[in-house]
């Protein structure tokens, strides 16, 4: 009587979640027909933060590259978009992927430099890079220098003829980037690269001895995340219609909130960034006008979670109940 | 019957999920030298580490002079008079020979072992006192490690693999010094790969095999074959 091992990737919970997620995305995609302009803005902003959080999570939670300088790419994305529209006369929608390309290219020499630093020094190094970009763009008079620059309405009209249609396009792109980021992270982690990343995260020495090319994997992830982050950044500033160096490269807006979202939601899980973004928006509803108090509370919450429940909200739930809505591992069942 | 200085009762020790000790018991009397023998991985170092507090243990399983000390942090246990000469010496590379020794005595227990006394025992250390501790030869480093443990004036000294990485002549010299080192009524537990040497200097021995006591008693009471069988786990119990 031999036992046979059945190996699966999904569980009932994950299959249900998959169906629900698909339904949710379809529902949200149809929002232009059931929602108001304010609804679209809110959901779009939500999707934007989910994108930034998922990307940062991929970098820090999986590749172990804790960057506090991703605002460099958010701002770069914004400035590339403005440059493309103002000086090359391009359609803003075309400028978004260009921003991604530009950021990806810049990320290559940047990675070569900052990868010489380890751990927290790496983190601060990424911050320095962001500062260099901020200071550099503040020197470019053609882009408004320190006071920044605005997008003229004509340029934005190139997206679509009516204001409604423009808002819909931007909304769909936001939604696309948000779901795309989660999806890409999910698929990546289910693939061999993902296996390599998880192995690296667990033990660099062990994975090196098994032939995992750590530096190449980390390098690729860093560049990929930089490009995607820049695309999100370009979309953010397309919506704002105005960019300044301080806003573009703001640590608070593009890094602090993102880090807190991921830590609270559950670092190193796919579900975490989504949960964390929900918490962030809920808290914002209640603490709306408190400004810096809001950041203070988020910061304190992140510290408490890091000390008491380091896996975050989702991580703790997943560990306790053994469920995974976006499973990236394998399950072994025994059938007698 | 003199009171046991150190009593270990049914000690179970774990490294994460791995159980290294499966219920080990022993009793050590004052002034006694106990040899702890066994193959690699049998649990000898783990036993020493639990006694001195580097590995967790339930409170009541280890009694020192009547007090239950299991699981106390190592820095508390050393202050009660137990010192460890760790496997592989574990000297502090950033400290000189003399600084290593001074640090050993930093907890302020009084007794015959002072810096001068240690230098008297190991004159070569006095010559090299300002040298970085890890620049010394293996045998000299072993002297520093022993001296460092002595500086805390312990009542019980735990010696883990003194001969590890040392030339036989050096080992012989160090063992020759043992009676003087322990002369002041100090108790000792000696972990040693070289069974003959270990049994030659001790009054009692315990043989560990895969985390369990497979044989114990006085060295003279057992034949080599009997001990060997217990060592390798081939003895019928």
């Amino acid at each position, binding site marked *: 009587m031999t036992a046979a091992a059945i190996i699966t990737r999904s569980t009932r919970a994950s299959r249900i979640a998959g169906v629900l997620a698909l339904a949710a995305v379809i529902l949200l995609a149809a929002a232009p027909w059931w929602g108001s302009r304010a609804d679209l803005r809110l959901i779009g902003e939500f999707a934007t933060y989910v994108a930034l959080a998922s990307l940062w999570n991929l970098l*820090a939670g999986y590749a172990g590259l*804790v960057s*506090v300088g991703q605002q460099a790419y958010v701002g770069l994305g914004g400035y590339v978009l403005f440059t493309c529209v103002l000086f090359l006369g391009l359609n803003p929608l075309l400028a978004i992927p260009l921003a991604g390309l530009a950021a990806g290219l810049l990320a290559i020499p940047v990675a070569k*430099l900052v990868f*010489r*630093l*380890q*751990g*927290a*020094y790496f*983190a*601060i*190094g990424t*911050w*320095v890079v962001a*500062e*260099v970009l901020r*200071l*550099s763009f*503040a*020197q470019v008079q053609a882009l408004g220098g320190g006071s920044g620059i605005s997008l003229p309405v004509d340029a934005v009209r190139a997206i679509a003829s009516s204001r409604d249609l423009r808002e819909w396009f931007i909304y769909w792109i936001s939604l696309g980037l948000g779901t795309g980021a989660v999806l890409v992270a999910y698929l990546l982690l289910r693939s061999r690269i993902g296996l390599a990343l998880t192995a690296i995260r667990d033990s660099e020495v062990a994975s090196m001895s098994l032939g995992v090319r750590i530096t190449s994997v980390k390098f690729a992830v860093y560049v990929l995340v930089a490009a995607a982050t820049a695309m999100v950044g370009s979309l953010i500033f397309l919506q704002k219609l105005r960019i300044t160096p301080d806003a573009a490269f703001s*640590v*608070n807006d593009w890094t*602090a909130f993102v*880090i*807190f979202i991921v*830590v609270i939601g559950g670092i190193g899980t796919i579900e975490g960034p989504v949960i964390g973004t929900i918490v962030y928006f809920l808290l914002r509803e209640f603490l709306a006008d408190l400004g*810096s*108090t809001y*950041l*203070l509370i*988020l*910061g*304190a919450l*992140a*510290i408490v979670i*890091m*000390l008491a429940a*380091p896996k975050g909200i989702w991580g703790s739930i997943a560990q306790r109940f053994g469920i995974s809505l976006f499973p990236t591992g394998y399950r072994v069942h025994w059938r007698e | 019957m003199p009171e046991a200085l150190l009593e270990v009762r049914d000690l179970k020790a774990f490294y994460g999920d791995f159980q290294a000790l499966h219920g080990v018991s022993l009793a050590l009397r004052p002034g006694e030298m106990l040899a702890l023998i066994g193959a690699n991985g049998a649990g000898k170092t783990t036993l020493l580490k639990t006694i*001195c*507090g580097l590995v967790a243990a339930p409170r009541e399983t280890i009694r020192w002079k009547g007090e239950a000390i299991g699981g106390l*942090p*190592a*820095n508390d246990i*050393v*202050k009660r008079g137990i*010192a*460890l000469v*760790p496997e592989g010496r*574990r000297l*502090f590379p*950033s*400290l000189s020979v003399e*600084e290593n020794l*001074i*640090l*050993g005595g*930093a*907890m302020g227990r009084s007794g015959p072992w002072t810096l001068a006394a240690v230098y008297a025992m190991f004159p070569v250390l006095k010559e090299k006192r300002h040298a970085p501790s890890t620049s010394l030869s293996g045998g000299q480093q072993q002297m520093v490690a022993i001296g460092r443990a002595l500086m*805390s004036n312990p009542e019980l000294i735990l010696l883990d693999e003194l001969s590890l990485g040392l030339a036989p002549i050096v080992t012989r010299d160090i063992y020759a010094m043992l009676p003087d080192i322990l002369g002041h009524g100090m108790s000792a537990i000696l972990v040693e790969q070289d069974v003959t040497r270990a049994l030659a200097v001790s009054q009692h021995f315990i043989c560990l095999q895969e985390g369990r006591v497979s044989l114990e008693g006085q060295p003279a009471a057992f034949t080599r074959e009997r001990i060997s069988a217990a060592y390798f786990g081939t003895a019928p119990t």
Partner: protein
Amino acid sequence: MNWVNAIVQGILVGGLYALFAAGLSLIFGVMRLVNIAHGDLIILAAYVALVVVQLTGLHPLASLIAVVPLMAAFGYALQRGILNRTLGKDILPPLLVTFGLSVILQNGLLQVFTADSRKLNAGAMETMSFNAVAGINIGLMPLLMFLTAVAVIAGLQFVFYRTAMGRAFRAVSDDKETARLMGLDNDKVYAAAMALCLSVVAIAGIFLAIRSNFDPALGPGRLIFGFEAVIIGGLGNLWGTLAGGVILGVAQGIGAQIDPGWQLLAGHLAFLLVLAFRPKGLFPRIEG
């Protein structure tokens, strides 16, 4: 002459940068912790000094008497209460907790003191200067700042290599487990190190507050200066950190001479160049 003057001023301000960096270097050496809130703690010290000066009317430099013990006590409590729990093999907890701390400090100070720019007034000392060589003016405060930096680093070296506390620091940094066998309580040793670090931070904060305007958002910039000084100088070498600070200061001075807007960029450029060509720094002693 302007160039020479710029370089001289750069050397002197390098002392301040070295003060920023010294604490960072110390803590990394003892417990391999990089405190992202370090810059914000310097700003906190500046505000503490502000309050002390307002309450007592003391001269800013004299307020050291109160600020140093206050910051030291805060450092001890911070380490024992929170930071000790983050130490371990995982790099995420210390990084994320100190990042959270940085945000909390900035926003807390913002709440209490608003974003208004402040400055501490050192009175006549601020304008005193003397003519070193023809055309080169050396201000009293910058010189004092530099000499204090040298003294602090010499002091830290003394503590590290010639005191029992320094012995304990080196021991726990070498081997945490064996340090316990010496009767050392690692938690308390780390807390003492942080207390020492924040004492230096207090000095740095007061000099910062005298030298220029400050507000709650200045922390990260100071962290970056300190960090750059440490990396340029090389890890594990306090005198190297002084050299790193001086190089940073001089680079910034040269940049400012070319164009005022280039001051900070020039410093970052110097840092990036060192990172590119001498990644271990100029005078390294330990591995990062």
